[in-house]
């Protein structure tokens, strides 16, 4: 009985689209296309170096974007990254609000297109 229940659970686990452990395997994407994978990671790491923006600022941008693209792996990674950098929870939430504002703004600004089209089609 116990074994059946366990394997049942195990199968369900394998049928989930997102598995937190997959984040640790991110690097493995290079195995099916080494050159492109390596170039991607080189670029990725370079992007987060200190530059005109600090790595701390970049981490907060990444966190906001992670929410906008709704990537659970990135949310996991950049929440942890923020904690390691000593970024406070109010700073993290404000970043998420920036993402939310742009996302809702981008929906609403299309309302102008709707209004234009509406007026064009109407007498």
């Amino acid at each position: 009985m116990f074994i059946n229940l366990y394997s049942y659970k195990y199968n369900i686990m394998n049928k989930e689209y997102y598995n937190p452990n997959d984040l640790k395997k991110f690097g493995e994407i290079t195995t099916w296309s080494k050159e492109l994978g390596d170039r991607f990671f080189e670029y990725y790491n370079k992007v987060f170096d200190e530059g005109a923006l600090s790595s701390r600022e970049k981490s907060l941008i990444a966190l906001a974007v992670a929410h906008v693209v709704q990537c659970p792996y990135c949310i996991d990674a950049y929440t942890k990254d923020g904690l390691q950098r000593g970024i406070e929870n109010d700073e993290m939430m404000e970043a998420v609000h920036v993402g939310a504002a742009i996302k809702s703004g981008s929906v609403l600004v299309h309302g102008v297109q709707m209004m234009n089209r509406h007026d064009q089609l109407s007498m």
Partner: protein
Amino acid sequence: MIKKSLKARKSELSKTQRQLDILSNSIFKKGVLPTFKEKLESHKISSFQPKTLKILQINIGYMCNQVCAHCHVDAGPDRKEMMPPDIMIKCIQTMNDAGVETVDLTGGAPEMHPHFRWFVEQIRKKTKVKEIIVRSNLTILLANKKYHDLPSFFVKHNLHIISSLPFYRKNKTDRQRGSGVFNTSIKALQKLNAAGYGKPESGLILDLVYNPSGAFLPGDQNALEQDYKKALSKDFGIVFNQLFALTNLPISRFLDYLIASENYEDYMTTIVEAFNPSAVANLMCTNTLSVSWEGYLFDCDFNQMLDLKVAVDQPHINQLDVKKLQNRNIQISQHCYGCTAGAGSSCQGSLT
């Protein structure tokens, strides 16, 4: 917020063997993660041995006025273990015999030991030790009237103060160290500054220690130092010398927290994956010897808390043999991954 040590709560984890079992079982036994020994071997480090002894870290007792959630000592007001004077005298003899450069006094809150001041005076009088470090938790300076003059005692003997302040804002500090700890720590830091500590050119060194308030690794030590300096100076006019970013090792109360919060396996995976071979050469166990309140000898304060005594026949200060100690192998287990993760971690901060 916890109020008692694991020992007083009669927790299973207060038994060192239980902790060592946890650190060797599950993910490590199943081979999901390599043991620390296997990891060293995979980097062609078959054993690692100490270099010249420089630092004698003496834990003079486990009593503390605080009960921090992450404490690797399981210290607290209920811990009564105190180093007897005859062991202190033996420590002084060892400082001379072994030509120790630095003495690092820790606890618990070392200042609570009734012979703390006498011990410091004796070290200054009877040895050529260059530097005496006191790991002060800050709140002790304001805990009771009898401690109010400690800053002037520190100045008189030119003690190097290293103090924990888990964060430069209130919330995270109080969550880890207890409510009210942040405000009291700030007042204590102001008192130390007023006595000259941390001020450029005073020669009185005040370093702070950051450790993560949760199941994650510390960020870059220099970046954190800059953040601390900016915030503490702007908000409270506080200055200090250096910030040491320490990794929490998975032992004692931090291990208890990791298990209770279901973070244990993830945290172990994080520190294993962050293994940095270049940190190994500078591990603090390579130049430090840790002495317990009873006089037993350990490779470091963490091993002391796991009761992993130095690998020699008579691991006690009464039978200390510098040559034999020099040739010992350092006792390791999976908690050691905490010292080699990322930039590395020691009682003096990052290693690389």
